[in-house]
């Protein structure tokens, strides 16, 4: 059995940043386990630009952003194994993994960082009726075909869901010569970033059909077309208003789910709101010495935010390994009213030396509303926002002064208020 101080599961942006941070804090014995042949994770197929503005102060493509971190991993001599699949993780941090050279092997870690990322919701999670023909892909699968394999999955495309990957793929397929006939979104707003609506749909005159859904799929061997229909206020399709769109490909961009199968095996407690672990300010889960960061914790819009969160987890894991983490009272952080969820779920004031950022998402679109932070019944922060949308993750700062002034507080809450 091999032994490591820190094992990072997943070699995507979260895992790489967490490993770099832990190493910089003096943790020497680190191993990253990655199931793909190459480090970098999903960034390798995200060839579009817009990454790195926060972290590197310049605009990079996905592969360029990945290489910045891969180079740091190499320069810092951090060990990694690629084409290695972790198949089990116990709450005592015993890892079972498999690859072609080592076979099945076990590793005992003193601390573990979960950085497995997320998965796309597939057709099976949607209950769309109709034919089981070929030509239906998740947007990320299509992205892999086009950007990694160099193959086009189809010529005439309908995209269901307006998540960022769907929007990016609408542009990508158009540039490669396909005809993207429509992006169909069930909700009255897009799930993606507004800038992607502008530069991926508007630039190419691709219609975005809000309040619409796919009601039927037609095709025998290959997809021949889809029926779409507007939906009422309860998101139910309105009968007799169906429209047929001939197409050979349907892409699904209907949400991402944190990939927590391993976390469950290690008895990590998951939040029903985020699908990820319930963590404290250092991103430590309920299981001692197991941390989580990136999209396995909650789905992010920006890789820069993943990196920042992963630095936090890497630093906290280092403190844990050095025995510097204090066991103290935890204050619960709650999302109330317009706020749907907030990360972290717990704060231990004694472990906080600087300001703390809380990440949250709102339930609906709010214009000219305030984001407020309450310590029990006392409002300590109140910030006006022109617009808040569920597609864009928000952050709010909790300062060390606020925490010091309310040491006996039982609960911190985030609220979206009219005034």
């Amino acid at each position, binding site marked *: 059995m091999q032994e490591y101080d820190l094992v990072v599961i997943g070699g995507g942006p979260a895992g790489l940043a967490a490993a770099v941070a832990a190493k910089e804090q003096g943790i020497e014995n680190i191993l990253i386990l990655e199931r793909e042949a190459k480090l970098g994770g999903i960034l*390798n197929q995200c*060839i*579009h*630009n*817009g990454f790195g*503005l926060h972290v590197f102060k310049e*605009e*990079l*493509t*996905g*592969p*360029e952003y990945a*290489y910045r971190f891969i180079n740091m991993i190499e320069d810092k001599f951090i060990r990694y194994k690629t084409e290695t699949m972790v198949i089990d993780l116990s709450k005592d941090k015993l890892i079972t993994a498999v690859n072609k050279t080592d076979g099945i092997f076990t590793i005992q870690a003193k601390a573990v960082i979960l950085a497995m990322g997320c998965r796309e919701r597939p057709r099976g999670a949607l209950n769309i009726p109709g034919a089981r023909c070929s030509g239906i892909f998740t947007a990320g699968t299509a992205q892999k075909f*086009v*950007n*990694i*394999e*160099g193959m086009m999955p189809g010529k005439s495309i309908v995209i269901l869901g307006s998540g960022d990957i769907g929007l990016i793929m609408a542009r*990508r397929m158009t*540039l*490669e010569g396909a005809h993207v006939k429509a992006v169909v979104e069930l909700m009255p707003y897009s799930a993606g*970033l*507004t*800038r992607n*609506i*502008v*530069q991926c749909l508007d*630039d190419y005159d691709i219609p975005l059909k809000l309040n619409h859904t796919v009601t039927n799929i037609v095709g025998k061997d290959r997809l021949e077309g889809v029926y779409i229909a507007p939906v009422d206020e309860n998101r139910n399709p309105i009968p007799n208003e169906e429209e047929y769109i001939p197409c050979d490909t349907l892409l699904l961009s209907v949400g991402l789910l944190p990939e927590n199968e391993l976390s469950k095996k290690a008895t990590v407690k998951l939040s029903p709101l985020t699908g990820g672990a319930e963590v404290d300010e250092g991103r430590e889960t309920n299981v001692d010495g197991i941390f989580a960061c990136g999209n396995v914790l909650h789905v992010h*819009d*920006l890789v820069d935010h993943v990196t920042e969160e992963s630095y936090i987890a890497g630093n906290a894991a280092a403190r844990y390994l050095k025995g510097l983490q204090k066991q103290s009272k935890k204050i619960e952080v709650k999302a109330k009213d317009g706020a749907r969820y907030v990360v972290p779920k717990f704060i231990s004031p004694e472990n906080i030396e600087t300001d703390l950022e809380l990440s949250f998402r709102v339930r609906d679109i709010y214009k000219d509303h305030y984001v407020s932070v309450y310590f029990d019944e006392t409002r300590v922060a109140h910030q006006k926002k*022109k*617009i808040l949308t569920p597609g*864009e993750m928000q952050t709010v700062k909790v300062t060390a002064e606020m925490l010091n002034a309310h040491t006996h507080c039982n609960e911190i809450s985030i609220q979206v208020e009219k005034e």
Partner: protein
Amino acid sequence: MDQKALVCIGCPLGCRLEVTLENSEVLRVTGQSCRKGKTYAIKECTNPTRILTTTVEVENGFLEVASIKTEKDIPKDKLFDCIKELKKVRLTAPIHIGDIVVANIADTGVNIIATTNCEALDT
């Protein structure tokens, strides 16, 4: 005077900009969180530009295709001209980030550069 609403694409923040125009000249920009917003608003109202990112085929490499981009933003109406020219390009590995793939693509004065590394199968 005309008012125009834009969403800045300078970064993922997506600032909502208000542009005041007179005879297609930009008088005032509000709503931006950084100076990129103003630059973007003026460009978008006079000469809209975009960064193009795509892939080209690779020979003798570990990758089937290599990702590439325009080194700077290019006029929006030149995007498909660039794509057409890039369809004819085949790169030979090894490839390094920043390598010039095509100089002065479609007469834009802008180079296409590689955004990934690709080792050669045999060296």
